[in-house]
């Protein structure tokens, strides 16, 4: 296995290369805990930094008077970032090994850029939280853990960095890993993997470290290559937001009427009875086109076209679900939002709410609390949320929405709030409870529990 991690994109056949899967992950770390170095190391050691890029970095570093190439220049793409020496925005990086393709959302670590980590985490299957081994779990680490928990990122890696500066001591790592796992576990993070590394020296990033014989787990890259990316579809509620109605109206296809969309969760099968929301009309799937090819079954995240038995009224914004597994429709949304705009969000404000392919008018009825990420304490009735705030909101919509709980479906439980006057994206919303119930507590609570969990 270690060979495949160090020799990516060797001339494999087209078939071999096509068979790899895609992992989307995000990195989070405070300013000086070595995130750029880790990203640089992953890119560099997986041979994803090419000669001309490295030369450009060397040129730029030299012209600034630096004596060594500054790998952060690989990732800081904008003038302002290079001038200030900080990362101000999410950037996406791409690299590959023989086993997988990776899309890395490289998110800045500054406190004021919580919205950037939310952005990166929203599409991530995995989040890497970096900690400086000398400092251990600090406030910023707790913020990052909380954001990963809020966004329900399925896998979290704690990378305890700068192990070289604590003499590669197992006890230092064990203490940090224990503290973080306890904290993140309480927030309901389902899977945590702690890895001791030195991004600078290259320990346990791509190559296993001989300096830490006591560690028997995977390197960061090995873990990224092997972590499972898809969920168990058997437990998912199938959802297809209708994006577009395909009606060729040609001599060849005079009666074709297909409902196009990307399956947001679960699977659909030919012959299945379905219900269309919000109207509640029912029909049966007579065919599924997977981009021009008929199939019997299709699943998330495939983009498909459904054909139904009855000619019922369905348009963009409707949600097709299996009959008997429909979410309740509601005009009263309770959610956690991360405010991402510079202008505030206030009680009484009129907004647009974009949920899947549906955009409706809405009004902010209440802002019951604002969360302090540092200690997860809640600030009651703040009245407004400003940039990077995370808070609970109650929203009344002009039309009913078929909204899942974000805990059940990241895709159909999420929404945007948009300023109707200029189209600005105001907030990222997640319907339902904020944090998951910790696994053991949920087990104790049993089936009867009407558990509020870590709601705030």
């Amino acid at each position, binding site marked *: 296995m270690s060979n495949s991690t160090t020799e990516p994109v060797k001339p*494999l056949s*087209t078939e071999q*290369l*096509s*068979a*790899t*899967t895609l992992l989307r992950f995000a990195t989070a770390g405070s300013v000086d805990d070595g995130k750029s170095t880790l990203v640089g190391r992953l890119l560099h050691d997986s041979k994803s930094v*090419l000669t*001309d890029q490295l030369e450009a970095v060397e040129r*730029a570093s030299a012209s600034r008077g630096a004596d060594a190439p500054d790998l952060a220049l690989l990732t*800081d*793409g904008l*003038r*302002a970032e290079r001038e200030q020496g900080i990362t*101000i*925005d*999410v*950037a*996406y*990086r*791409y690299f590959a090994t023989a*086993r*997988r*393709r990776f899309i890395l959302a490289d998110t800045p670590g500054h406190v004021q850029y919580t919205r950037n980590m*939310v*952005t990166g985490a929203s599409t991530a299957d995995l989040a890497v939280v970096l900690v400086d081994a000398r400092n251990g779990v600090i406030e910023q680490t707790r913020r990052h853990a909380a954001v990963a928990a809020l966004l329900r990122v399925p896998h979290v890696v704690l990378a305890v960095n700068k192990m070289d500066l604590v003499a590669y001591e197992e006890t230092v790592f064990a203490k940090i890993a224990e503290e973080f796992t306890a904290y993140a576990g309480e927030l309901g993070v389902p899977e945590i993997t702690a890895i001791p590394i030195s991004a600078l020296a290259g320990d346990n990033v791509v190559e296993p470290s001989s300096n830490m014989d006591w560690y028997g787990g995977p390197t960061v890259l090995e873990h990224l290559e*092997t972590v*499972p*990316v*898809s969920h*168990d*579809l058997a437990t998912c509620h199938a959802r297809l937001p209708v*994006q*577009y109605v*395909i*009606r*060729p109206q*040609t001599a060849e296809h005079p009666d074709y009427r297909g409902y*196009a*969309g*990307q399956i947001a969760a679960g699977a659909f099968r030919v012959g299945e009875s379905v219900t269309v929301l919000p109207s509640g009309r029912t029909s049966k799937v007579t065919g599924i*086109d*997977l*981009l*021009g*090819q*008929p*199939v019997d079954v299709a699943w*998330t*995240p*495939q*983009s498909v076209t459904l054909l139904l038995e009855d000619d019922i009224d369905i348009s963009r914004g409707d949600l097709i679900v299996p009959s008997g597994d429909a979410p309740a429709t509601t005009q009263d949304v309770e959610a956690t939002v991360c405010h991402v705009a510079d202008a505030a969000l206030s009680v009484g404000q009129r907004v647009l709410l*974009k949920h899947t*392919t549906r955009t409706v008018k809405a009004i902010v009825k209440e802002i019951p609390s604002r969360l302090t990420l540092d200690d997860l304490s809640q600030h009651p009735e703040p009245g407004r949320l400003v940039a990077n705030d995370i808070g609970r909101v109650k929203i009344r919509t002009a039309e009913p929405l078929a909204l899942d709980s974000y805990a059940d479906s*990241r895709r159909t439980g*999420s*929404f*945007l709030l*948009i300023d109707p006057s200029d189209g600005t*994206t105001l907030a990222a919303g997640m319907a339902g409870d904020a944090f998951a119930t910790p696994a053991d507590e949920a087990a104790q609570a049993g089936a009867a529990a009407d558990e509020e969990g870590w709601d705030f």
Partner: protein
Amino acid sequence: MTTVATVTDEGTDSPYALSHLDALESEAVHIFREVAGEFENPVILFSGGKDSILMLHLALKAFAPAAIPFSLLHVDTGHNFPEVLEYRDRVVAEHGLRLHVASVQDYIDRGVLKERPDGTRNPLQTVPLTEKIAQERFDAVFGGGRRDEEKARAKERVFSLRDEFSQWDPRRQRPELWQLYNGRHAPGEHVRVFPLSNWTELDVWQYIAREHIELPGIYFAHEREVFQRAGMWLTAGEWGGPKESETVEKRLVRYRTVGDMSCTGAVDSDATTLDAVITEIAASRLTERGATRADDKMSEAAMEDRKREGYF
């Protein structure tokens, strides 16, 4: 009738995991359909290069068996490869598409734009492009830009709002959350849409191979009259090369990108098939743009600066 066009990883993933190409394809199709659902007058920028050919292929799949609900727009620099223009016209006819052309040569002939001393016409495309967008009132403009191409592009959103001057302001971009693309814009503004944002050069080639997509011949190794300028092999021709000090040679080359003849360099290659091209790219130690684009070498922020002005 069951066909499940999906490959799974050995062991670690469920049988429902999509291959990376299937995942990228599905995402791009979703983006095309979002635009069709939310905009009045979208257009696909089409240069006849591999990325725009790929976009067209994905759009055809997204709306099958119906026609693509978009027209095409080509910014013709006047220094295009004849093989590429021929390909463009053939594809447009084959699929019954509508093609708009914005011509740099027109602007030069009318005296609106001036030829640059270095003869490069790529930066001159911005004015004809943005004026055409305004004139035709396009509200969504698909571009084949990929984030792996360049570090300023790595910061580009899938839906990128442009003001009435087509300007990009990297500090005022909308955060892009989940797959919820916000395409709202004021009259006069438009949105640049990049369905291939998450594709790499290798992904593009693998997908072209998988889907058996036809490309213009200049992407494959062929004998060509070229001359060297600033470390690149440029095609000799009426556009302005070679100068007296430059010598023409016949070499076995191919193109990794297709832009303007005045700024797109060929690479030495003997790759005459898709498989050979993929093998070559997988082993290459140079990025696509680093190997073949003169315009990106002008300054550290060349791409960012051009994008701010309205370049795609």
